[in-house]
C-alpha cells in the first residue's frame, strides 16, 4: 500500500487524480436510482439516450403539425372530461335545469345533459368550449400543415407513406368532428344529421337500407346518438391515435426534413437536440397552444346550443351551416343543379346530390393521397429527398396546389352563399351562378397565375445572383441616362446559396419509337404520355445559375446578359456592367417576354 499520508479518494488510481465528476446530489442520486431500477428491467437507457440527443431542425412552419398534435391532445383530454357528464341518449326527458327559457321543454337526454354541462356544472362550459375550439384548431392546423408539406415537396421519397397516413388522418379528423358536433342533438346539429340521412339515401340501390342501418330504423330514431357517441369517443379516436403514432414514429425514424441553407444538405439534419432546447421549445409550445385555446374559450362563444333549441324535424333555423371543415361538401351540394337527377325504369339516381355528398369527400382524399405517386411517375425520381423545396422552385406543383385550394375555397365560400347574400345585399341566385362558373374557371386561372409568379421569382433569384443586389442608388451618366447601381461580387456569397442550391430540371426526352431493327417499341405510347406530362411540369423550367454563368456575367461587363439559361430564345435581357467606374450600373430594358422552350 502507499505510504502517502495525504488522503486519496477510493476511486483514484494514482496520486493527484481528481474525481471525474462532482458527487451527485442526493436528489439526483434518487432519480438516478429510480432510472437505474427501470433500466435494469427494461434497458431503456439506450433508446431514451438516443431520443434525447435527436436533432430537430427549426422553422416556424414546422410548428403547424405541432399545433395539430397539441390540439388533438387537448381534445382527448377535455373530451374525457365531457364524458363524465354527457348522456349519449336520444330518450326524451323534460328539462328542469337552470336555463330558464327551455324549462319544461321536452328534449333528448343528450341535449339536456349538454345544457347541464353549459349551465349547471361548474367549469363545464369552459371545458366544452375548449373542446370545440381545439377541434376547430386541430383541423385548421392539420390542413395548413398539409399545405406546408405539399408546397415544400416534403411528401417525396421516403415520406410517401407518411403523406398517405396524413391524408387518412385528415379525412378521419373531419368525420370525427362531424360525429362530435352532432352529439348535442340541438336543432342545428339535428338538421345536419337530417341532411346526412338525405345524402346517404341517394346511394344507388342500397340508399334507403343504408339510412335504416345507420339510424337503426326511420330517421331520426333513438339509435343515432349512442352510435355517434361510440364512433366519436371510441372507434375513430382509436384509429386516429394509432395512425397518429405511426405518423410521428415515421418522423422520428426518417428524421425531419429541413429547409436548404448553408451547411444543410440532403445527408444531414441541422438543428437543436431534444435535450434541452427542443424539449423546452416544443413542451412550452404545448402550453402556449393550450393557453391560447383556453383564452378563446373564455372570450369567444362557440356553438351556443341553448340558442338553437332541441332537435325537431319540422322547424329549422335560417343560415344553417356546418362547422367549417364540412363546408366544402355542403357548398358542392348548393352548387350542383337539380336537373342532374335522372329517373329511368322507376329508379332514381340523384346525380344532383351524390357527387357532393358521397363522392366528393373520398375523392378529395384519394387524389390527395395519390399525388406523390403521380409526381414520382412524372419525374421518374427514385432518390431520397430530405431537403425541402422552396415553392417557387417547383412552379407546376405549386400551381396545382393553388388550383386545388382555389377549387376547395370556391366550394367553401359557396356553403356560405346565403350569409353572403344577406350581408352583402346580393342576389343568392347570382352568387350561386358565380360560384358554379368559378368552380371551373378560377382554378385554371389560379394555376397559370401561380406558375407565372413562381417563374418570375426564379428569374429574380437568377438576376440577384448574376447582377447583384439593387442598391437603390441612381447614377446619371455623362450622356444623360439614368442607371441603378447594382452591388455585385464575383464570388457567391453564403446568403446567395439559397438562390442556387436547387437542382436543375428538364423534361424527359422521348426515346426513339423504333428499335435498331425497325420494330416499334411496345412502351412507346406510355412513354409519349409520360414525356407529355414531363413537358407540362418542366418545359419552361428556370434553372439555377451555374458557376460558369456567374463567371460569364462578371466577365463580360456591360454586354447583354441573359437571365434565362443560354438555351432560351428571346430571353428577357438585362444590360449590365461590371465593377467598372463610369458605367457601374445596369439598365433594365423592357425586353420581350421570356421565351418558352
Amino acid at each position, binding site marked *: 500500500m502507499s505510504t502517502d499520508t495525504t488522503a486519496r479518494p477510493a476511486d483514484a488510481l494514482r496520486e493527484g487524480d481528481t474525481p471525474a465528476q462532482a458527487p451527485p446530489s442526493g436528489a439526483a442520486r434518487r432519480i438516478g436510482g429510480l432510472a437505474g431500477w427501470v433500466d435494469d428491467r427494461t434497458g431503456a437507457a439506450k433508446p431514451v439516450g438516443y431520443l434525447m440527443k*435527436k436533432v430537430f431542425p427549426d422553422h416556424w412552419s414546422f410548428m403547424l403539425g405541432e399545433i395539430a398534435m397539441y390540439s388533438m391532445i387537448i381534445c382527448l383530454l377535455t373530451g374525457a372530461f365531457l364524458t363524465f357528464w354527457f348522456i349519449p341518449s336520444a330518450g326524451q326527458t323534460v328539462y328542469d335545469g*337552470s336555463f330558464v327559457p327551455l324549462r319544461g321543454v*321536452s328534449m333528448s337526454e343528450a341535449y339536456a345533459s349538454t345544457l347541464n354541462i353549459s349551465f*349547471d356544472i361548474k367549469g363545464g362550459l*369552459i371545458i366544452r368550449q*375548449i373542446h370545440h375550439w381545439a377541434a376547430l384548431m386541430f383541423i385548421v392546423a392539420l390542413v395548413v400543415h398539409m399545405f406546408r408539406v405539399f408546397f415544400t415537396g416534403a411528401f417525396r421519397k*421516403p415520406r410517401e407513406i407518411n403523406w398517405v397516413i396524413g391524408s387518412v388522418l385528415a379525412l378521419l379528423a373531419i368525420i370525427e368532428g362531424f360525429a362530435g358536433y352532432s352529439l348535442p342533438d340541438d336543432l342545428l346539429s339535428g338538421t345536419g344529421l337530417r341532411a346526412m340521412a*338525405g345524402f346517404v*339515401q*341517394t346511394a344507388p340501390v342500397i340508399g*334507403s*337500407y343504408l339510412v*335504416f342501418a345507420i*339510424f337503426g*330504423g*326511420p330517421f*331520426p330514431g333513438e339509435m343515432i346518438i349512442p352510435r355517434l357517441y361510440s364512433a366519436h369517443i371510441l372507434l375513430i379516436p382509436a384509429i386516429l391515435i394509432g395512425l397518429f403514432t405511426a405518423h410521428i414514429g415515421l418522423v422520428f425514424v426518417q428524421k425531419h426534413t429541413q429547409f436548404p441553407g448553408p*451547411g444543410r444538405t440532403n*445527408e444531414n439534419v441541422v438543428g*437543436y437536440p431534444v435535450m*434541452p432546447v427542443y424539449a*423546452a421549445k416544443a413542451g*412550452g*409550445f404545448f*402550453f*402556449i*397552444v393550450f*393557453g*391560447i385555446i*383556453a*383564452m378563446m374559450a*373564455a*372570450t369567444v362563444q362557440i356553438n351556443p346550443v341553448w340558442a338553437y333549441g332541441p332537435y325537431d324535424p*319540422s*322547424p329549422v333555423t*335560417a343560415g*344553417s351551416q356546418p362547422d367549417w371543415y364540412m363546408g366544402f361538401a355542403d357548398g358542392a351540394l348548393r352548387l350542383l*343543379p*337539380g336537373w342532374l*337527377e335522372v329517373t329511368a325504369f322507376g329508379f*332514381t339516381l340523384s346525380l*344532383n346530390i351524390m357527387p357532393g355528398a358521397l363522392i366528393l369527400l373520398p375523392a378529395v382524399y384519394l387524389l390527395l393521397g395519390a399525388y406523390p405517386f403521380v409526381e414520382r411517375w412524372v419525374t*421518374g*425520381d*427514385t*432518390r*431520397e429527398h430530405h431537403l425541402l423545396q422552396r415553392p417557387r422552385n417547383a412552379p407546376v406543383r405549386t400551381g396545382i396546389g393553388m388550383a386545388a385550394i382555389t377549387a376547395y375555397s370556391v366550394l367553401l365560400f359557396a356553403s356560405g352563399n*346565403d350569409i353572403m347574400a344577406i350581408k352583402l345585399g346580393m342576389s343568392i*341566385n347570382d352568387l*350561386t351562378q358565380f360560384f358554379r362558373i368559378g368552380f371551373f374557371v378560377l382554378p385554371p386561372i389560379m394555376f397559370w397565375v401561380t406558375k407565372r409568379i413562381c417563374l418570375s421569382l426564379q428569374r429574380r433569384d437568377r438576376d440577384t445572383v448574376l447582377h447583384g443586389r439593387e442598391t437603390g442608388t441612381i447614377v446619371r451618366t455623362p450622356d444623360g441616362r439614368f442607371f441603378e447601381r447594382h452591388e455585385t461580387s464575383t464570388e457567391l456569397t453564403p446568403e446567395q446559396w439559397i438562390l*442556387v442550391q436547387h437542382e*436543375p*430540371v428538364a*423534361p*424527359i426526352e422521348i426515346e426513339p419509337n423504333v428499335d435498331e431493327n425497325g420494330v416499334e417499341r411496345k412502351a412507346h405510347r406510355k412513354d409519349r404520355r409520360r414525356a407529355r406530362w414531363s413537358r407540362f411540369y418542366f418545359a419552361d423550367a428556370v434553372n439555377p445559375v451555374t*458557376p*460558369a454563368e456567374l*463567371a460569364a456575367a462578371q466577365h463580360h461587363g456591360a454586354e447583354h446578359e441573359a437571365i434565362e*439559361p443560354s*438555351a432560351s430564345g428571346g430571353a428577357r435581357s438585362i444590360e449590365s456592367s461590371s465593377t467598372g467606374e463610369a458605367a457601374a450600373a445596369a439598365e433594365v430594358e423592357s425586353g420581350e417576354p421570356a421565351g418558352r422552350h
Partner: protein
Amino acid sequence: MNEQDTTHPGSEVAPPSEHGTAVRLDQGHVVGDGGLPERFTNPGLPAHVARMADLDESAARRAEKQVATLFGISILGTLAFIVCYFAISLETTIFVPGIGETSASNFALGVTMALGLLGIGFGAVHWAKTLMPDEEVVEERHPMRASDESRQQVVETLKEGGASSQITRRPMIKYTLGGALGLFALPLVLQVAGSLGPMPQKSNSKTFWNGGPSGPGQDPTFKPLRLMRDPENTPIKAEDVTIGSVFHVMPEGLLPDPVTGTGGTPNLLEEKAKAAVLLMRLDENIIKSQKQRDWGYDGIVAYSKICTHVGCPVGLYEQQTHHLLCPCHQSTFDVTQDAKVIFGPAKRALPQLQITVDGEGYLVSAAPFHEAVGPSFWERGR
C-alpha cells in the same frame, strides 16, 4: 445517397445538354469546361453568433428574471383559477368590453386557466431562446433502405420458414387455410350489417297522412285527417287561413296534447319528419296549375314541408312572390306553379297534399300524398 441511384430520365437532374454532364451535390463536383464546377458548392454552416446572454452575465440574469416572472404568472393564474372556482357562482354575469354580457364564471375560469398555461409556455420558450445553448448540432442521415444482406436474410428466413412448415409441399393445407382465413370474418360482418337496422320496406313512401303510423311494417288505411296547427294541435277552419298567412301543419292524432304532453303517436319525431306540411292561401287567379287548384280548397293549398333535396324543412315563405326557400341548400319552390323548383339543387316539386273541408268546416286531407315525400332514393318511383 442510395445504392439504387442511377441517373433516370426526367429525374431532377438535367440530362446531358448544353449544361454539360449532370452533376449532383452528393457526387462531388466535376470540373467542367473552363475549370469551373457544374454546381456551386455548399458554403457550410455559418459561424455561430453569440447572444447577449452568452457574453454578458447581467443579460443572462435579466433573462433569468424574465423567465421566472413568466413562471410566476403561471402560478398566480392557477391559484386564481382555484379561487374563482369557489368564489364565482354560475349565475353571475359580468360585462366585458368587446364581448358584452357574459358568464362571469366561464370568463374568469378560462382566463385564469389560460394564464396558468401561457405562463409556463412562454417561460419555457423564452428560457430556451435566451439561456439554453443555441449552437446548432449536425446529425448525419443514412439511407432508409436496409442493407442488401439484411433484405436477403429476410427473404431467406421467409423461404426457410415456408419450407420447414411444409406449406409449399402440402397444397391441401395451403388452400383450406386460405379459404378459412378468407371466410372467418364473415360472421362478424354479417352480424353487424344484418342487425344494424330493420328493412325500410315501403315506409319511405308512406306518411302519417296515409291514415296513421307509417313505420316499417305498418300499413295504415286511409281516412281523412284534420289538418292540425303545430304545435298547438288545434284544427284549422278554412276561413282562418287568410291570404299571405302560412300554417305549420301536422295530421290529426300525431301530436301530443301541448299542455299535458300526453297522447300523440309513439314514434313522434319519425312521423313528424315525414308528415310536416305547410298550408298557405293564394289568390286563386295566380295559381297556374289546374291540378293545384283542384287539390286545394278555395285557394288554400297544402304542400309537404320536407325538401325534396336532402330533407331539411322548407322553412322560409316569401309572401309577396309565394316562393318557398329551403335554408339548408337554397332550393327555391314557386307555390304559384305547383311548388316546382325554380332555383337550387332540388329536382322535384314539393308533393301536394289533397285537401277539402269536413262537415264542421275544418280542413281535412282528401287523400294521402301521391308520392314519397322528402329526398330521393333509388326505388322511390316503384
